[in-house]
C-alpha cells in the first residue's frame, strides 16, 4: 500500500476560482483495493482566525461508485450568492471542495476562491 492520496478532485478547466452563484464542476477520482461503500463530494465554507471556527455546507453530491474500487465520475455543485471568500485581520473565510470516502471517513479537500471577481476579497486593502 502506498501513501499516495487515494482520493482526488479534478476541476473542469483546472478552475479554482468562481463567482457567487456559479456551478463548480469537476471529476471525483478514487483508487482503492476494495470498493468504498459511498463517495461524497461536499462544497463548504469555513472560518479561520481569532474566533472559534464556523462552518457551513452549501451542497453535497453522492457519487455512484457502482461497486468499483477505482473510478472517475463527474460532479456539479451549486455555489450560493454568499458568503464570499475573504481575508480580514480577525477572520478568514475559505471555500473548499471535499471528497469523502465512507464509511472510512477518509477525505481530501481542495480550496477554491469565491468572490465577485472570482477572487478572494482582501478586507485589509479596502
Amino acid at each position, binding site marked *: 500500500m502506498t501513501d499516495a492520496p487515494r482520493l482526488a478532485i479534478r476541476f473542469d478547466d483546472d478552475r479554482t476560482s468562481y463567482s457567487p452563484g*456559479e456551478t463548480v464542476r469537476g471529476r471525483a477520482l478514487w483508487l482503492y483495493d476494495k470498493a468504498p461503500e459511498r463517495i461524497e463530494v461536499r462544497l463548504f465554507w469555513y*472560518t479561520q482566525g*481569532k*474566533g472559534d471556527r464556523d*462552518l*457551513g455546507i452549501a451542497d453535497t453530491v453522492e457519487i455512484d461508485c457502482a461497486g468499483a474500487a477505482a473510478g472517475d465520475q463527474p460532479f456539479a455543485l451549486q455555489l450560493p450568492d454568499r458568503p464570499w471568500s475573504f481575508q*480580514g485581520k480577525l477572520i478568514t473565510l475559505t471555500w473548499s471542495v471535499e471528497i469523502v470516502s465512507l464509511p472510512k471517513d477518509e477525505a481530501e*479537500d481542495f480550496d477554491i476562491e469565491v468572490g*465577485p471577481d472570482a477572487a478572494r476579497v482582501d*478586507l485589509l486593502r479596502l
Partner: protein
Amino acid sequence: MARTHGKPISSGNSKGGRGCLGLFMLVWGTGFGGGGLMALIGGFESSSSGDDWARWIIGPLFTLIGGGAVVFGLLTLLGKVQPGGIKKSQATAAPRPLAADAGSPTGDVVLRAGKQKSCALLFLIPFTVGWNTMVVFMADELGGDAMGWLFVLVFGGAGLAMVLLVFYLLLALTNPTAEIEVDADGVGTDGFAVGRTTTIVWRMRGSTNRLPALTIALEGAEEASYTRGTDRVTDRETFYRAVLAEGPELLADAARDTELEVTIPAGGVPSFEAGSNKIVWRLCFEADIPWWPDVKDQIVIPVGPGAPHPREELR
C-alpha cells in the same frame, strides 16, 4: 492546494465554552444563593435585633440571584442556552432581511440603534442595589477595626463605581437616539448591497440641544468570538470607515427627516453572521458632548451581495 485528513473537515464542529461557563455559573450560583439562604436562616434564628433588616433584604435577593445563576448554569450545560452566540445549526451566512424589522406608516423600514444601555441598566441596577446592601451589612458586622475598613475600602469602592456607572448610563439614556428609514420597495430584502448606493432618511429622536456637532459614518467591522477560560470574548476590528456627513450644521436637520446617500464600497463583502464570526456594516451617529455622556449610536444595516457578476449573467 489539497489536504488529506483522517476525518473530513466538513463534519467538524465549532468549539464552544458551554461547559466552562455552565460549570462556573453553577458553582458561583450555588455559593451566592447559599450565602443568601444562610442570611435567611440567620434572620429566622436571631432575635429581633436592630440590624436584622439587612438579612431580610440580602437573604431573598442573593437566593434569587444565585438560584437564577444555577438554573442558567444547568441550562447552559444541557445545551439549551449557548453563550455568546447562536447554535451552529442556526448559523446563517445571510443577513437578516430588512423586512423583519418594524415598518413605518409609509411602508418604509425603520432601523434604530440597539438598546444596550437599557439592557445593561436592567441588570446593573438590581446588582448595584444588592452589592451595596451587602457591603453595608458586612461593614456593620465587621466593625470599625482595620479589617472592617479594608473591606469598606475595597468592596465599598467597587459599589461606588457601580453607582457612578448607573448614573452615567441613566444620563446617556436622555441623549437623542438615531433612527434611519429605508425604502423597502425600492431596495428589496437586502436593502444595502456591495457597490451600490442607497438613499436613506435619517433623524434624531429626542432633544439635540446639548449636541455641539454630529458625525454620521459608515463602518464595516469583523467580530470574532472565542472562549478564554470561562469567558466568551468577542474581538472587533473595523476594516472600513467613511464619514458620510459631519458638522454642527447637521443638527439643524437632525429633528426632521433628512436624506443621505450611503454607498457600500465595491471592494467590500456582504454582511455575514455565523455562530462565532461576523461581518457587520453599521451607520454610526456620533457626538462628543462636554461634561455629558457622548452619543455613540450604531445602527446595523444588512448588506447583500448586489447584482450578479457579469460573467455569471453570460452563462
